[in-house]
């Protein structure tokens, strides 16, 4: 197989590789290819960074304050659930 064909295979499986979701032999094949392929090393690093950014992203939008009526509606449902147990 050509180097670029191998790059494409690595490219297709890279998230599963980084998430440790691949079988050991597939992992080994990817590591074997990547270590001698600078573009794949760079790309792997860039995907790692993207994943880190996604994990650090905390959607910090604060919802509008819960009004008394909505809170009471939720608490009634909670009390009913507790009473029925």
């Amino acid at each position, binding site marked *: 197989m050509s180097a670029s064909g191998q790059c494409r295979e690595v490219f*297709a499986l890279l998230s599963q590789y980084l998430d440790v979701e691949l079988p050991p032999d597939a992992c080994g094949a990817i590591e074997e290819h990547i270590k001698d392929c600078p573009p794949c090393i760079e790309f792997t*690093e860039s995907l790692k960074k993207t994943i880190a950014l996604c994990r650090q992203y905390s959607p910090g939008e604060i919802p509008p304050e819960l009004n008394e009526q909505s809170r009471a509606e939720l608490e009634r449902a909670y009390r*009913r659930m507790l009473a029925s147990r």
Partner: protein
Amino acid sequence: MDRAAETALARQLLSGTTGAFDRFVQHFRSKIFNYSWLMCGQREDAEEVAQETLLRVFERFAELRDPERVRPWVFRIAKNACLTKRRRSLFAPSANEEISLDSLMPARNGEGGAMKLEIADWSHVPEDQAMRSQMQREMRRAIGELPEIYRAVILLRDVEELTTGETAQILDVTEDVVKTRLHRARLAVRKDLDARLRGVLVEAK
């Protein structure tokens, strides 16, 4: 609040511990609101989805067999509330397009995006509040622009850090579908950040 703390809170809620109700509402309402806003696209819808989700959660809380699964259990209810909301909306976002793997692959000669991602990792620059805020906005935009099927997966897997199996159950798809969509979602976010931020934010040393 991490998963262990959520589990403890779920147990307190079931045993009627004082204060557990308000802590639960405060924590999960914010989570559901943010997820729903990105999934429904409208702030007002997100507020309603959060209320409807919490109502269902409290009505059915006794059905939660395993308190350790409280986060995926709440998100499954939130996902369904989002779907109901979308069906009622006249302006429901358009159907889902698939993203092909080839469209996300950078060319080796640099055309179509670089292999490197030359942007700052904000975890390394915690003191720079302006950069952190910009990255938060860019991430929100990049995730928000993904087709819905990819957006849901990246929010549940990477932002909420649910497992592949939990995400598959929430979305009613196989684990292989979750893996495929997650990879494409990440690649699309990577490509988006590369195109928009290259040269804007350089690695801070």
